[in-house]
């Protein structure tokens, strides 16, 4: 790692978020992810001659919601502009975007700073625009094909101020941003599917200096982990350049996660002139005070408010409350079962423990949890009623998480209920002791380790369905 006492890193983020409207921004095609290539498109989103865009008002509503949730000022008089450039995934050869009058300005999110204190990351602006299609390279034929399904999916671009000083701050901001947007329902924010994409502008300068260094822009990071790696790589690269007497070139760089390195795409010299001008096919959009007031009222409880409530009203720890509220899916899982009457702390323990464990093992995001959220409650209920042991419950949860099994049925089908009949437990243990006379003798002669072995064998014979404490007690009794 480089010396942060000598060099300071400054970052700003441009985050593209696909809005979760049902239809595209300028036509009535579905925004659904995937689908066979070129099945979610029409003459309008493929830019055929003579067609015109019709603005989907839901996009303006969603963008307004996002702006309000991110503490922005909403622009009353909005216009669209054209950003002109040639690329096969952009069928009109211009993107309808907003340059001169973006819908939101001057917002911000509070995050935890490196020193543990609070820090506001400023949001410079949010603008509405359309997404482009995708190029698909076919290595077998060497040809490139275009899939226009994503063309015209509505996006908002959230441009932060250059307020970040570390990769951790970037991740905390992104986690918060993601949670807020998910909570207000404007985006599913799935990085893997590209519905949240972050570009990082980064520069370094000698610590203590007021003047920022020359920045580069990094693209193509598709996970938070990749963002952290890319930031560390780029800061180190720039510092190396400067420490060897070189100059940082203003350029766009592409992160290659498989090679753990970034590569220059284009420099400022060959930067495109986008020849922005007002979009003549769309009339200006006015957003009234009433609409803004109504939208404000319609916003649900945001993650920060939830976090505070979980601590003050539900008695969760600061850490648990913070972690839970990073994800709408985790909050839904928590609150749905809370509403069904399961205790908050027990739920938080399960989520922070088993759920997080399974998520990290599977490499999945919380929003990809496919099981019925009520199953977590059923499982906790069975433990509370001593129908299954805690260990059994953990095993059952694996099936719930991975295959979406109903835990009650799963326990029955696999005969996993705790054996409560002490007679049956005793009989099984007696058999184990009889078969392991040597270990029994060792225990009697004072070897504690032998007891552990016998407990293990007994639990095995009982297929884990007995309470381990009961088993230990009975064993000791038999062994005298």
């Amino acid at each position, binding site marked *: 790692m480089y010396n942060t006492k000598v060099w300071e890193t400054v970052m700003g983020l441009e985050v593209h978020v696909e809005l979760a409207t049902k239809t595209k921004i300028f036509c009535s095609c579905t925004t659904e992810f995937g689908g066979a290539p070129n099945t979610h498109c029409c*003459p309008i989103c493929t830019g055929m001659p003579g067609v015109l865009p019709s603005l989907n008002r839901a996009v303006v509503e969603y963008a307004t919601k996002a702006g309000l949730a991110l503490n922005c000022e909403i622009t009353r008089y909005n216009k669209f502009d054209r950003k002109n450039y040639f690329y096969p995934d952009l069928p009109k*050869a211009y993107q309808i975007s907003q340059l001169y009058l973006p819908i939101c300005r001057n917002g911000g999110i509070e995050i935890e700073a490196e020193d543990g204190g609070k820090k506001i990351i400023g949001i410079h602006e949010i603008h509405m625009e359309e997404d482009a299609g995708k190029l698909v390279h076919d290595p077998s034929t060497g040809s490139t094909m275009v899939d226009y399904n994503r063309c015209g999916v509505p996006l908002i671009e959230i441009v932060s101020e250059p307020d970040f000083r570390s990769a951790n701050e970037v991740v905390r901001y992104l986690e918060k941003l993601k949670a807020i947007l998910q909570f207000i329902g404007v985006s599913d924010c799935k990085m893997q599917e590209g519905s949240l994409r972050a570009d990082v502008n980064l520069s370094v300068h000698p610590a203590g200096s007021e003047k920022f260094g020359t920045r580069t822009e990094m693209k193509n990071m598709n996970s938070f982990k990749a963002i952290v790696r890319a930031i560390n790589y780029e800061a180190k690269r720039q510092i190396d350049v400067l420490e060897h007497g070189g100059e940082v070139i203003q350029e766009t760089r592409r992160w290659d996660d498989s090679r753990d390195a970034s590569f220059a795409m284009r420099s400022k010299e060959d930067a495109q002139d986008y020849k*922005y001008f007002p979009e*003549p096919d769309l*009339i200006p959009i006015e957003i009234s005070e009433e609409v803004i007031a109504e939208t404000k009222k319609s916003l649900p409880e945001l993650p920060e408010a939830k976090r505070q409530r979980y601590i003050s009203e539900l008695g969760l720890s600061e850490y648990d409350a913070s972690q839970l509220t990073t994800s709408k899916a985790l909050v839904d899982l928590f609150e749905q079962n809370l509403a069904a009457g399961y205790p908050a702390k027990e739920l938080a323990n399960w989520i922070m423990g088993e759920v997080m464990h399974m998520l990290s093992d599977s490499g999945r995001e919380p929003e990809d949890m496919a099981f019925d959220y009520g199953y977590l409650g059923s499982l906790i209920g069975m433990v509370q009623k001593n129908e299954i042991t805690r260990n059994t419950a953990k095993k059952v949860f694996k099936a719930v998480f991975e295959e979406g099994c109903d835990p009650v049925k799963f326990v029955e089908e696999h005969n996993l209920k705790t054996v409560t009949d002490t007679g049956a437990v005793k009989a099984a243990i007696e058999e184990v002791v009889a078969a392991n006379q040597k270990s029994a003798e060792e225990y009697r002669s004072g070897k504690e380790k032998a007891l552990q072995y016998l407990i293990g064998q007994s639990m095995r014979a009982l297929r884990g369905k007995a309470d381990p404490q009961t088993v230990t007690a009975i064993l000791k009794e038999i062994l005298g």
Partner: protein
Amino acid sequence: MNLESMTALELGAAIKKGEISAVEAAKFSLEQIDKYDRKFSCFVTVQDDVISRAEEVQKKICSGEYISPLAGVPMGIKDNMCQKGIQTSCGSRMLYNFKPTYSATAVELMMNAGAVPLGKLNMDEFAMGSTSETSWFGATRNPWNINCVPGGSSGGSAAAVAAGECFYSLGSDTGGSIRQPASFCGVTGIKPTYGSVSRFGLVAYASSLDQIGPIARNAADCAAVLGEIMKQDKRDNTSVETRGVDLQAVLNADVKGMRIGIPTDFFGEGLDREVAAAVEAAAKQLESMGAAVEKFDMPIVKYAIPAYYIIASAEASSNLSRYDGIKYGYRAENAADLLDLYTKTRSEGFGMEVKRRIMLGCFVLSSGYYDAYYRKALQAKALIKSAFDRAFEKYDLILGPVAPTTALKIGENLADPLKMYLGDIYTVMINLAGLPAASVPCGFDSNGMPVGMHLIGNYFDESKILGAAHAYQQVTDWHTRRPAGLNSIQTI
């Protein structure tokens, strides 16, 4: 029945009365096309389903489904309006093979009114030009003199009506492209208020200026067509609700008490003396019919051409970027890489005039030049608009010439684009202001070439313009004259 001298409304009435069938009318038009089009090259495409469409229309007229006064009347469509399944080339090699899967709203509305489309009419490439010579498919000729241009860009639309190859046509007007060819060909054409006819399906040249309108033999026919197509359209965000055009009001209109203003600045340097004389005579005629005609100053005129060519070219450079050889239309062969494919396709697919305007447009939008050109042009546009707003506080209509000259000789302008641009002086400012304006035949020059007068109205005053034009046409016969050579021209 003399179909050759009939107007669209007269033919529509005859079809309604059963004096002639839609099929017979269609056959007549196909014969006329067969007879004259090799000479004038008005049509790029003649549809092969004309008769079957006419049969279908006739049935629906009989069953009462089609009640429009134009039902069954054969129509021509400028080749920049999409028609489902029919080649829509915009007069360009770039779209020589393009068949849209959708129809323009204006075309759809005419179809719903029982129109029988004959085919697609020639035009300057992507509507850029004032002569109809820049088409990839060759130049259209003026039926009044085949050595002359028909004007442009809707040259095919105007010439086809003048030659009697169709009874009316749809044209488009970005800077005079309906009015100037109507003037050159001795027919009546109107560009309605911006936003009153949907642009959906009209291949864009300059989106903030483009507008579809009719070209026909007289004002009443134009009113009938506008009556069908002036409808607000959800598919065009810039389209607005209008009160439309009331055909009966147009037919009953007179100019008594109407205040007509004539900008003295329209009669300055560059205006042909014979054109000026014909327009002034028309003003006298209107005055004798009871209109109050008055001259006034409008010095803003001089900013119109630069403002127009900056705005139109800027929008065109963006609108035409989609023709890149990737998705449809012309694609160059043997491209080395993506950039080479773009460069070759666009170099080979576009003609000179289109390339000139794309380059001009790219230049005025480039960073560092935007404020000096584009922003200034928008300011000039706003000034022109307010100058007209002030004029319409005093006048019902503004009258002037449509073009400084009558039709020029083929090839005369092609070599000198600046001269061609100056020919648009009277028309472009109307598009910049978004106003409605018509060209109405008002005389001939000493070479026998038609002259048009420009009747400009306030926003949504199409009925007033066409009413005055109709009243004028009740007492004049300029619009009923036919090119002398028509019947003597032999089928080649």
